[in-house]
């Protein structure tokens, strides 16, 4: 019972404080200003999220195109490709002569490399879009997962933060 009394007391004090503020005279801020500021921040965030979604959609198409154009091997991955390039094209097969003079075929590429390159190119393309956003959204901020045909999930490492600003100090 004493606990209830104490809680009630606290609540009443709180209510009193709230009522006091409600009775306080209006200053220069319109009613709901802070709420609007909050909604504004929310809208900015939603806009950024939409931008990221659209960017990802375009970046994926571009990445698929670029991956093929680069023979499935991005610039980052080309140093891992033991066969390198010739005429600017990624080498998929190397033919070498064995002791008997017959050609043996060395394959230089596999699906994993292609997927890795797709991710690298996707990230590169996405970064370009993110840098173009007015808020300069953070780049290289994702862990990627590729699934099925073809779905890429980007899990953000750091959140996007939007400051809720006082009106009078907004520039």
């Amino acid at each position, binding site marked *: 019972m004493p606990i209830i009394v104490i809680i009630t007391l606290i609540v009443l004090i709180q209510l009193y404080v709230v009522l006091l503020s409600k009775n306080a005279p209006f200053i220069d801020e319109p009613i709901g200003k802070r709420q609007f500021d*909050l909604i504004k921040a929310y809208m900015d965030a939603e806009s950024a999220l939409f931008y990221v979604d659209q960017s990802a959609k375009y970046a994926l198409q571009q990445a698929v195109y670029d991956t093929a154009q680069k023979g499935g091997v991005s610039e980052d991955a080309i140093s891992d490709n033991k066969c390198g390039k010739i005429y600017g094209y990624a080498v998929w097969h190397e033919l070498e002569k064995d002791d008997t003079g017959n050609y043996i075929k060395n394959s230089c590429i596999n699906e994993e490399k292609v997927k890795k390159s797709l991710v690298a190119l996707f990230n590169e393309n996405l970064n370009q879009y993110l840098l173009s956003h007015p808020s300069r959204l953070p780049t290289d901020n994702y862990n990627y997962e590729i699934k099925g045909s073809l779905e890429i999930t980007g899990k953000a490492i750091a959140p996007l933060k939007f400051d809720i600003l006082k009106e009078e100090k907004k520039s």
Partner: protein
Amino acid sequence: METKDFVLLMLMPVMLISLVVYTDKSPLITGAVTAQEEKSNIIGTYSVTPSFKAMIDYDLSSEYKKVKEMVDGIIDECKSRQDIEECLKGRADEFGWNCFDSDNAVDVFYEFVDRLNECINTKEDKVVCRFALDKRDINQIKNLQIKLTNENKKAMAVLVKDKITLEREYINLENLLYTGYDNKDETGKSANRVEIIISYQDKKPVVEQAYAIDGPNKIGLSRTFLFYKTKNDVKFIDELEENLFRFEKIIELPKIKGFKFCAKTGKQVYAYDKSDDTVKAREIVYRLAATYPKQSATPKPVDGLKVFDAIKAENSAILVWDKSSDSNIKSYSIYHSTKDFADVKIGDIKKDQDIDKKYVSNNPVEIKDIDLRVCIFNPIDKPCKYLIHNQQLEKDKLYYLQAENKLIYLITDAKDGIGHYFAVTAVNNEGAELNNDKSIINNDYVLAFGKNYQKSVPKDDLAPGKVLNLQGQGIGQGKAKLAWAKPGKNIDGSAIADIAGFNAYYKKGQSASGLEKIDISYTKRLITATEANCDNTLKLSCEHIVEGLEQGQSHNFAVTAVDENSNEFKDNADVINIIVS
């Protein structure tokens, strides 16, 4: 306070805690607001996690596998082919996979980059890599600039044309080093950048300038593309000392070649491409390459092979085939045997003792024209001279018949009367010739009847030379005894080994002059070697008695030798006159 108000009041913290838990755990994309002390103009922060999911209707995995399988198939088919480049091109054509994005400036750039990379990748130590840029079918390119710079411990080659960067490519070098001769094996001097300026004049590349920038210094570099390769580095060579490097071990590059595929998938995406600087629907095309050791192309199989019997010659055949315009042909291999070797691989043909081999340099003696069907002996005892050409054909010599653009070769060890198989193959500078491996599908580099493989039966149409020392006398009762010596040669002067008998000619007549010719007025009597009592090879003198002659009359007599194929030459036979008693 009413109970319901109290309950509501108590629920508030519960809801707040739930909200915190929900915000923290569940959907990634959500917002959270946190208040801040109002010391600055920021009164709070709204944060969201900008995770996303993007999808496209394109199965990367299966499209990649499809392309990979097709490329694998092409490579597997072509790797055993001698015309590997043509095979790759042919297959790429079939799939519509040939690349048509050639730009001369870009091609020159990659030619340089590829050859420099090849030098870097070679396992050799303390050698000089040398290469030259290819001639190109372009009249003029001016001031094509290749710049090499160092970016984060990785060299980058950049192609600049008219001050516009066209291409850039990493090179597997940590430092841009240059060196003189004395310190070549030590660490070279590091350049900030290297610049090479190339122009093309009348299809030939000219390196206008090549220099390294090292701080304030500009050092001239070898303009003949010499690089010093040590175990870990490739160094550009100081132009002033490049001649000294020519005495080092030099490896000529390139040693590898490549073939480009532009593998179309038939799928489209909206994408940007710098070639037209626009975003539009574009086909997804895999641009990839395969490499293989550089080698001179194996000459194409010889065509139009015909085999003629060499007239008026024994055990001989004349091979005639179309002359190829391939300047890569260094020699021809000529194979013949009595057994059919059409399906025997060339390696096995070379080892087979039953197949005769001849190799003749592709340096033929030119003849304007020749009639291989007719020849005359002039003089007798020398090989027959072919009409028009008016010369004999010598064995082991290649002739080029200008009038018909054909090559001619005489074989003199193909036994007469027996079927022989003949093959001719072209051989390049590296000794490569068709492999005749018929287990390879679609292999054109094989022996094929009517093209480079023929069967023929040489005939013996060479008559024995004239009998010697013909003498005779009447021995009474209308008989005359003739004696002569067997000829030791054929009429072309070659050794004879096939005399089967003789023809004795006679007629009643006046004393014979030196110009007397044997004509149809003569009676002919065939005499075997046995009848002439000289069938033994060691016995050279022969004799024969002609009977039934008119007594008391003067008769002309002549004897000619006849071989196993009834070849006989009587134009030069001696005619003697005997009075038959």
